């Protein structure tokens, strides 16, 4: 079963932070308070879009062809993700 890394608190919807990390090979644990990576705060669909964007060398035209969508639709999707990233950055900066 594929687990999804939560980005927001299920109780109060605030941004979650990372408290501990573990090494699976030697079981070393690292504790502290770390911000979630910005890209990790996005949902799966947005993360997949960004990965596809990078793999397409930033070509929206190529992405549109691969996704079988029109160029404006893919551009609009990118603009939505840009807005979400800006929102996350604003919250992180507060």
């Amino acid at each position, binding site marked *: 079963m594929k687990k999804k890394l939560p980005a927001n608190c299920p109780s109060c919807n605030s941004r979650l932070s990372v408290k501990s990390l573990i090494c699976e090979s030697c079981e070393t644990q690292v504790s502290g308070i770390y911000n979630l990576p910005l890209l990790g705060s996005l949902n799966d669909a947005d993360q997949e879009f960004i990965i596809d964007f990078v793999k397409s060398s930033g070509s929206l035209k190529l992405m*549109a062809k691969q996704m*079988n*969508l*029109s*160029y*404006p*639709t893919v*551009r*609009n999707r990118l*603009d939505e993700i840009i807005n979400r990233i800006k929102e996350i950055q604003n919250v992180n900066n507060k």
Partner: protein
Amino acid sequence: MKFYNPHNKIGGYNALYAGLAIIIVSAATGSLLNIHFNGNLQVALLPDRGFLFVLAEHVAPWLVYSFLFFIFGRLLSKSRIRLVDVAGAFALARFPFLLIVLTGVIGGRNEILAKLMLLAVQQSNSATENVLSGGDITFIVLYVAFLLAVFIWFIALLFHGYRISCNLEGTKLIVSFIVGIIVSEGLSQLLIQYIYSH
């Protein structure tokens, strides 16, 4: 692909090429069947004035709409708008006009509509010629319903084309669309009148 919103799947140059093909076929067929459009929201029967004239009647409003809504998109949208996306979407939106043109092959259609127009003109003279039969009236009612459905489809295609090519939503989208339709249609009429006079 939804019939009222193909713009998610086809846009940009692909939509432009498909739309231009639709415009050319509509103009060619309309020229043969004496059906043309003096504006985006009006259809008329006229003696053949030639393919180029009918083509100009299709191209003029398409260009006016495309440029005006492109300007609206540049002013209102936060995205980078391309003219080819707007023009392509609006060219593709003209597909329903092809269906109207193709109704010209219906036998007796032109005669019934000509009778109706003549009756409307002669009403004040109380002429009794060219009275419409029951069948004529049924045809007219169905044809008007068909025209209405096609124009609504055209408006829906324009709306979604504008929404997606300019990435607009909410009040900005709706208000600018309504204003754009009114202004574009007015400008199109002026341009077509200019074409008529030359």
